[in-house]
């Protein structure tokens, strides 16, 4: 006697859970914004908890989408990064052991999704925020979420105040100019799974900065330019200091790569950054100069990167950091570091009213 197995249909979830899962698919880049934004703006009464089926689907989506995102962003590339102070070549899964590539999500992504499904982010009295620290995987999820939600300026405005975006080093590194206040602590980015994430996201960060710098020429308000530039300067300085302390200059490669692209055109002038500023600007000359200097926050970082290159040149063959220093020298040469840094320096010097020599 045989027992016939009844065909199982698609898993059943409530209306709220259905919306939540659709929003999740949108946030991880698997659904177009025009199909999802009406769900983000809609309000639905939240259930006390989610069903097992919904949680299982959400976990599955998060696990697959975040790994796919990392692989597509740069993990697939046969690249060279430092592993135990030695340059190691290969794709991310060839360079790093599994325990450094394992993504573990905390409760914050689901809690955020529940809030986003239940509330209209631009009009809500529920000011939910991630209560504690985020795991590396949580930080990646919130970066992916911000990537998608940033297109809606009102939503982005509501989100930048929240800890899981404001205190998230990945979001701050990709969208420094969107935030105000002190830069987050980047020291944690150079340990554990966060290293793998940073390695994968290098091309993404480079692209974000290229886009952000190209958009600066459209900024008309002097105050906005100064504020954005100062925040970018703080963020980049904090990140580069942390990278130096962790002896991982290779993880700051995106700063070099993006500057190399931005400063490539031969006739590039200050107008590329400040050409959109309207009117005479602030009354004080000091404020005008500071605003223009702030606009150049990104190319100014080449000074730090060049100091790393000079240090690398002085590392002897028998010293511990020799292999690491050779990698940075190779990166510097590949990006035509000397030419690009000279160009950046010349641009900054043009702002100096007492330029001598």
């Amino acid at each position, binding site marked *: 006697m045989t027992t016939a197995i009844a065909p199982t249909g698609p898993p059943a979830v409530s209306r709220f859970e259905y919306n939540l899962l659709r929003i999740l698919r949108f946030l991880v880049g698997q659904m177009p914004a025009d199909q999802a934004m009406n769900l983000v703006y809609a309000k639905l009464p939240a259930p006390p908890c989610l069903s097992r089926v919904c949680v299982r689907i959400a976990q599955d989506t998060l696990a697959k989408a975040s790994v796919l995102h990392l692989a597509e962003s740069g993990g697939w590339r046969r690249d060279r990064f430092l592993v135990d102070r030695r340059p190691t070549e290969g794709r991310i899964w060839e360079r790093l052991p599994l325990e450094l590539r394992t993504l573990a999500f905390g409760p914050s992504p689901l809690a955020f999704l529940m809030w986003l499904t239940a509330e209209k982010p631009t009009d809500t009295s529920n000011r939910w925020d991630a209560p504690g620290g985020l795991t590396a995987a949580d930080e990646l999820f919130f970066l992916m979420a911000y990537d998608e939600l940033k297109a809606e300026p009102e939503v982005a405005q509501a989100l930048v105040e929240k800890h899981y975006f404001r205190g998230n080093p990945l979001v701050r590194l990709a969208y420094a100019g969107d935030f105000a206040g002190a830069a987050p602590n980047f020291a944690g980015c150079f340990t554990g799974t966060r290293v793998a994430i940073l390695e994968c996201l290098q091309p993404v960060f480079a692209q974000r900065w290229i886009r952000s710098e190209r958009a600066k020429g459209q900024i008309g308000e002097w105050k906005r330019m100064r504020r954005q530039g100062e925040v970018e300067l703080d963020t980049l300085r904090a990140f580069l200091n942390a990278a130096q302390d962790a002896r991982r200059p290779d993880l700051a490669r995106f700063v070099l790569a993006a500057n190399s692209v931005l400063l490539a055109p031969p006739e590039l002038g200050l107008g590329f950054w400040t050409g959109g500023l309207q009117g005479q600007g602030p009354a*004080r*000359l000091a404020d005008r100069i500071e605003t223009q200097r702030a606009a150049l926050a990104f190319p100014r970082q080449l000074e730090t990167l060049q100091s790393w290159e000079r240090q690398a040149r002085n590392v002897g063959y028998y010293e511990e950091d020799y292999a690491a220093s050779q990698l940075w020298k190779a990166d510097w040469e590949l990006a035509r570091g000397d030419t690009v840094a000279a160009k950046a320096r010349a641009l900054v010097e043009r702002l100096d009213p*007492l330029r001598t020599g």
Partner: protein
Amino acid sequence: MSRAYRITVKESSTRELKGSDEICTQLEVLEILPPEVMAELLKKELIQKGYTENPDGTLSREDGNTTVTVNPKTFEVSVKSQVGEEVTLESKRETFGYDDVGPGQQELRERLKKQLDDDIDKKAEHESERLQGQATAELEEKLCDLQPELSEVVNKVTREALKQKARQLGNIKELIEDEETGSLTIKIEV
């Protein structure tokens, strides 16, 4: 019968208003000799240009409303322009009151006084902006004169440092110096 009366209140205030602007930059002095020697050479050149030494080791020169300060150790230059003026600000307002209805004389006076205070604050703000503009204009003018002067100082310091360095390296056989172009050719025998 209702009787109207006019209340006039005048207010004047004397204020010390200031406008200032400042830029800071760094002189590009080549490290030909040890920093303390370069600092000494720079100090000497600046003193010849009319700068005086301050107790904190910086050198400064006042020119009208503008002060130039140079730190010979760090090569930092600050140019500050400050304009101050004692300004008497006056304002006058009138209003009408009625002896049977509406607010009383005392209340009307107090309201007028508040409005006058606001008027005077606005005038003070306007005057401050004017002084600020004046300070910035003076600073910009000063920078135009100062830039070639400081370039000349840096050039002289560099030449003097090169001469000293050449003397340390060997015997100077030939030294051709052009004050106008700032060029210097030294031939040494090592």
